[in-house]
């Protein structure tokens, strides 16, 4: 077994593009779920809106990239308003069902033949819509070290992506420490008490949904630009559930948790997959038990099992504080 290769793959993944995407998605969820207690199961919808805004506006309408990015942010605000207006008064489990339905509506419309002309149907949109972004790339040669290896484009995405994550995280840190952030946490713990203090709970929840949604659309930008394509089925419910796994793994209601969660999640995922693949390839695991193309399925089983075990035995995650996050304040 080639342990150097396994280490290289795992460490590259731990700091790679997927880690950035899921860290951003989970930072948005942290605002919704961790700080405000909103059970948003439609985060994939915000990513889809971000990703499709960039791809569609640049490819079909010839927008410059920066304008498409701005429009993507605007669209995610609109989605947050559309989602929030009817649902934010509802109980947590209703909100969960409605948001998951909304994300599914977005995916089905994106993959439908009816809007094929602009959204590309089930094939999605492929094109050089990230050209403006990659033209700025100073690292055309990529990186090739024993522990980290990226090609030129990926390295540029990784560098700018982590810069974006740090900026977003800093803003989040300022927000949740502010008086505004304290109101959010109070809403999470006891909505009625906050209302009795004369705060407009509905408005605060809406602001939280919008901010978390915008961060979600950032994740969509990275997703679309890094691959130079968007595919509707990448934005299914599984994406949202994985983002939750990342968040809960790190520890909800902790500013740095999404990053830690995402790094650990992707490291483990790739590490386990590579180990299994090599073990099967070298004959340590018999072919009748696990085929080479079944390795990917095992890693999803482990994600599901991991999410269950975390929630049962350590709902505060690795870095969370059990006292801070009373998950069932209003259930």
């Amino acid at each position: 077994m080639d342990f150097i290769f396994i280490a290289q793959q795992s460490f590259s993944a731990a700091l790679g593009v997927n880690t950035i995407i899921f860290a951003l998605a989970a930072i948005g969820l942290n605002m919704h779920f961790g700080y405000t207690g909103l059970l948003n199961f439609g985060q994939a919808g915000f990513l889809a809106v971000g990703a499709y805004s960039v791809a569609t506006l640049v490819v079909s309408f010839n927008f410059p990239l920066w304008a498409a990015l701005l429009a993507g942010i605007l669209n995610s605000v609109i989605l947050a308003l559309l989602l929030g207006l009817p649902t934010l008064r509802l109980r947590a489990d209703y909100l969960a069902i409605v948001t998951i339905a909304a994300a599914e509506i977005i995916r089905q419309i994106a993959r439908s033949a009816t809007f094929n002309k602009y959204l590309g149907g089930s094939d999605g949109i492929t094109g050089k819509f990230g050209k403006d972004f990659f033209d700025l790339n100073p690292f055309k040669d990529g990186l090739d070290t024993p522990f980290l290896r990226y090609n030129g484009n990926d390295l540029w995405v990784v560098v700018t992506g982590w810069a974006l994550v740090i900026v977003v995280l800093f803003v989040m840190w300022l927000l949740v420490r502010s008086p505004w952030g304290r109101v959010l946490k109070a809403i999470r713990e006891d909505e009625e008490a906050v209302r009795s203090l004369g705060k407009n709970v509905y408005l605060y929840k809406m602001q939280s949904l919008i901010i978390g949604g915008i961060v979600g659309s950032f994740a969509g930008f990275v997703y679309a630009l890094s691959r130079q394509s968007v595919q509707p089925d990448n934005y299914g419910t599984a994406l949202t559930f994985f983002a939750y796994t990342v968040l809960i793994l790190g520890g909800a209601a902790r500013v740095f948790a999404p990053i830690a969660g995402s790094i650990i999640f992707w490291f483990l995922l790739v590490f386990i997959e590579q180990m299994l693949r090599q073990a099967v390839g070298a004959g340590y695991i018999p072919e009748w038990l696990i085929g080479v193309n079944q390795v990917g399925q095992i890693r999803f089983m482990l994600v599901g099992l991991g999410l269950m075990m975390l929630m049962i035995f350590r709902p505060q995650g690795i870095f969370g504080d059990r006292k801070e996050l009373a998950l069932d304040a209003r259930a």
Partner: protein
Amino acid sequence: MKMGKAQLVRKIALGLAGFFLISGFSTLAASSALAATESTLAGEIKDSTSTPLSGVRIDVTGPNGFATQLTSDAMGKWQVEVTSTGIYDVTLDQASLPSGQALTDLTKATRKINVLMLGNTLTILFPIGPGAEKTPILDQSAQLLADGLILGIIIALAALGLSLVFGTTGLTNFAHGELLTLGGLLTYFFSTIAGLPVFAAIPIAVALSAFIGGYLQDRLLWKPLRKRGTGLIAMLVVSIGFAIFIRYVFLFIFGGYTRQLPEFAGQEGLEIGLVSITPKSIISTSVGLLLLIGATLWLLRSKMGKASRAVADNPALAAASGIEVEAVIRSVWILGAFLAAFAGIMVTLNQGVSFLMGQDMLLLIFAAVTLGGLGTAYGALVGSLVIGVLIQLSTLIIPTELKYVGALLILIIILLVRPQGILGRKERVG
């Protein structure tokens, strides 16, 4: 292992040879194209029996405002010369196809063609097959209504269990869809792999699902969690993890294909009045209806059924008045898994079963339960029939592929107007 390696070497050798051949040809093509100033986009439109279709409109748009419209000739052929490189959109106008013919993949009406260099001919094919016949709107509505009622009964079977479990334990179970998949896959296993007749396989599959998916699932997973005092939101997230886990266990064991029951695949429909229904559909729907009536009677008449409603209403009071709450929850789980397994079998009979079946059905089930009012058993029944019929009838107005979008939109709108659902009570929300 040795065999494997030899094969691998041979494959690589073949692949390399192929690669050199192709690159050789493309260098040839490139050198001959040096002086060319135009490329040809061409195609031939034929139906599935290779009969050419004439008069089909093709729109071509491309760089520098290039736009042209053509129609296929008597041999079904069309072609256009283009003079600049770039990406061209070639769109087949579906309305111009003769009746009874349609694209086999509706998302492929527009093809993006990248002309990298000039001088060669690019052939673009649109696969066409027999499409839906255009039937009068009355027949169509009657057929859709019948399909909708069948879908409604399937959803109702699944929704009843979800609603009862929610009512008695407060669990929003995202793994409920996997109970449908379990029923379908077990039927497939016993009929096709173990070789039993389908009529014998179904009762075994339903009984096993009720035992594994109902009794064992509650006993080994949810009951211990209730004992630990795990919160409702935490249990909701646990059910998501469980659903992902089970789904990929199914994929691991059964693979990713959609499996049909060979005994019943491709059955001819019977013409009854305005509608055409397959015999398997008639029988399975009747049994499903009987099961629903039985479950409703159980809830209304039997001691356990009444107790389950009492627990749903107020668990503490029910326990205080001598009802054994755990026994009630256990029977609700078994009943729920039993009904869901049959719903899964109905889907399997009609469309086959894949590991994603439960996931695909889950949102419809949630929509039905929420529409009727979370936690009310009759609400789930009414909600299911409404959702089933609405989904099918909506295809009169909106494209078939968007029919679930319509159902989900209705769900959101209902929640806006009447958050407690059709039959729900107001105090259940917020």
